């Protein structure tokens, strides 16, 4: 192909080659022997060789098509499978050494290249493009989980510090009942209520502040202060005022989400161009008419900015607030309780649930943004 070498493939090939040479494991202190050699592990060895081969091949020929990208990813999947099998079935867990980590580095370089190809894939076929768009973050995420698994197992990290994803997964699947109850308490009740109230009041106050300059000068500085109230201090007070149940958590969320919405909306309301304002002035458009027809639409990108930031803040707020007194259900309650009980896998199952819920929430807001502000330059598709 072109004269350029493919750097990622080159790195992948070199590391895979090195991993064949360097020792795979440290020494078992009791027997005083190496735990494993390449020769003991035909599966892993074959994966390493495969990485060397495709690495070298694609270094020269370039990764020019989705097909080639897929080949790389397939080899990486095989390599990852072998790495995990080696860790668990051949007792490498806790003893992994240079050679092993070099192999992981090689996989890393290759997987990056493979994902890169798919990320740059362009087609007019909507369905295929959608699939490609989903595969990319998914592949990246699976890769991160794999790294996590390999690192915890390879270095023998104590599971009370950081359990392996496989353990968390098992725990997650086995505790769906508890997880659902917690989700309902924390997300469906506290987060949604607090989010709607907090964002709504932020928006309304921003409009009030915009409408009445006196408020802008008087309230905005105080608004800054309210939002900066640290949750740690606010949460116990809210529990005292609003009781143990979800209402106090919603109150904490209101306080947390209020300010981002206020600040962003105030900036956004000033984002409408001068010419457009003049235009509305020529229609003798009243304050509210101009607000709804010009200034709020122009502010939407800013408002969505706040909605997105708040969607993650709300979840954090609810969970943290539950550290300060709750009925004995809820994601925050479970997390703080299970840490104390050393059930760290359950803690991470809840964290995973929080991440899933939060990401879905954020995704929903982002989708709405795309629908509502599709006119904004940041969304307009470019053909080059």
């Amino acid at each position, binding site marked *: 192909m072109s004269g350029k070498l493919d750097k990622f493939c080159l790195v992948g090939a070199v590391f895979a080659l090195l991993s064949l040479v360097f020792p795979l494991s440290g020494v078992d202190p009791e027997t005083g022997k190496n735990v494993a050699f390449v020769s003991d592990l035909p599966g892993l060895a074959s994966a390493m060789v495969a990485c060397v081969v495709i690495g070298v091949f694609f270094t020269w020929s370039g990764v020019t098509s989705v097909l080639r990208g897929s080949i790389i990813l397939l080899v990486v999947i095989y390599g990852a499978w072998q790495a995990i099998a080696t860790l668990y079935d051949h007792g490498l867990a806790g003893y992994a050494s240079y050679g092993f980590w070099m192999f992981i580095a090689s996989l890393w370089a290759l997987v990056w290249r493979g994902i890169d190809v798919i990320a740059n894939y362009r087609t007019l076929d909507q369905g295929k493009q959608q699939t490609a768009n989903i595969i990319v973050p998914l592949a990246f995420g699976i890769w991160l989980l794999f790294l996590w698994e390999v690192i915890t197992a390879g270095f023998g990290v*104590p*599971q*009370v*510090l950081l359990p392996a994803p496989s353990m968390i997964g098992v725990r997650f699947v086995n505790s769906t009942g508890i997880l659902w109850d917690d989700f309902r308490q924390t997300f469906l009740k506290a987060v949604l209520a607090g989010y709607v109230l907090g964002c709504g009041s932020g928006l309304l106050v921003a409009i009030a502040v915009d409408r009445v300059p006196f408020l802008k000068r008087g309230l905005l500085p105080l608004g800054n202060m309210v939002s900066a109230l640290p949750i740690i201090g606010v949460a*116990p007070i809210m*529990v*005292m005022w609003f*009781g*143990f149940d979800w209402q106090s958590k919603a109150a904490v969320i209101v306080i947390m989400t209020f300010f981002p919405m206020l600040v962003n909306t105030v900036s956004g309301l000033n984002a409408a161009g001068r010419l457009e304002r003049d235009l509305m002035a020529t229609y003798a458009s009243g304050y509210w008419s101009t607000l709804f027809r010009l200034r709020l639409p122009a502010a939407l990108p800013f408002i969505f900015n706040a909605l997105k930031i708040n969607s993650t803040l709300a979840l954090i707020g609810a969970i943290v607030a*539950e*550290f*300060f*007194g*709750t*009925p*004995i259900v809820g994601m925050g*309650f479970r997390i*703080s*309780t299970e*840490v*104390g*009980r*050393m*059930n*760290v896998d359950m803690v991470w199952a809840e964290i995973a649930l929080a991440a899933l819920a939060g990401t879905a929430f954020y995704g929903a807001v982002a989708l709405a943004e795309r629908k509502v502000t599709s006119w904004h330059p940041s969304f307009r598709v470019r053909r080059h």
Partner: protein
Amino acid sequence: ADNVTLQLKWVTQAQFAGYYVALDKGYYEDADLDVTINPGGPDIAPPQVIAGGGADVVVDWMPSALASREKGVPLVNIAQPFAKSGMELTCLKDTGIKSPKDFPGRTLGVWFFGNEYPFLSWMSKLGIPTDGGPNGVTVLKQGFNVDPLLQKQADCISTMTYNEYWQIIDAGIPADDLVVFKYEDQGVATLEDGLYVMEDKLKNPAFVDKMARFVAASMKGWHWAAEHPEEAAQIVLDNDATGAQTEKHQIRMMKEVAKLLSKDGVLSEAAYTRTVDSLLSGGSDPVITKKPEGAWTHAVTDKM
């Protein structure tokens, strides 16, 4: 000097006066030890800290330590400065609660984070479900203070004889208006504030020796503290970086803690067995599922 890092279970207060006194009075130094004391907090699980290599020895309650042991953190009790439990459930007299028989239908405040085990095994011994049903009790995860009782959000809350109980008194509710159920009196007491280390380290005789010196110096500190509550409280205050503790409260706490102390810090096998039995008897959801093996040793206290 040998380095020792001690992780406390809770914030700097007279509950841990012995260690601060030993440090302040130079008992550790005399034992050729260089001791660092890390205070705990609501977010700190001592077993996690020690498993992560953040401490050599931790102060923890036995139920939590044994539960951690089952979860793969091999903690071993090397000494037990507190012979008696300070846990109690404190209720307002107005609520009409006179005995544990009155609990069903009530709302009770409980500390979680591994501190709920004594309560749960007590309830299972009483045969009271904790699911909030009409025959059971509604459990609240109480925060760090006594507000739920003062605000009437709970009928009873967990207190320590040396701490929260006095906060209620300070809040203006006289002792006559309170009904107190001490875990010791109810026969469900479990061992609190013991010293725990990781099992594998005990294979090393030098470590055992170091710990022996550490426990001896700590007990010396405890004895001094018990005899000089005012000075001990002052030492605690000097070590409190938050500057939030008050002298009155700490002196009182010191005096109460003194009542719980053991003479020599040696773990009583009988108390250990009683704790384990209580934890095993947890009905459908026992705290630990099988009798722990090797969860304590006298190796250290024997060498003192």
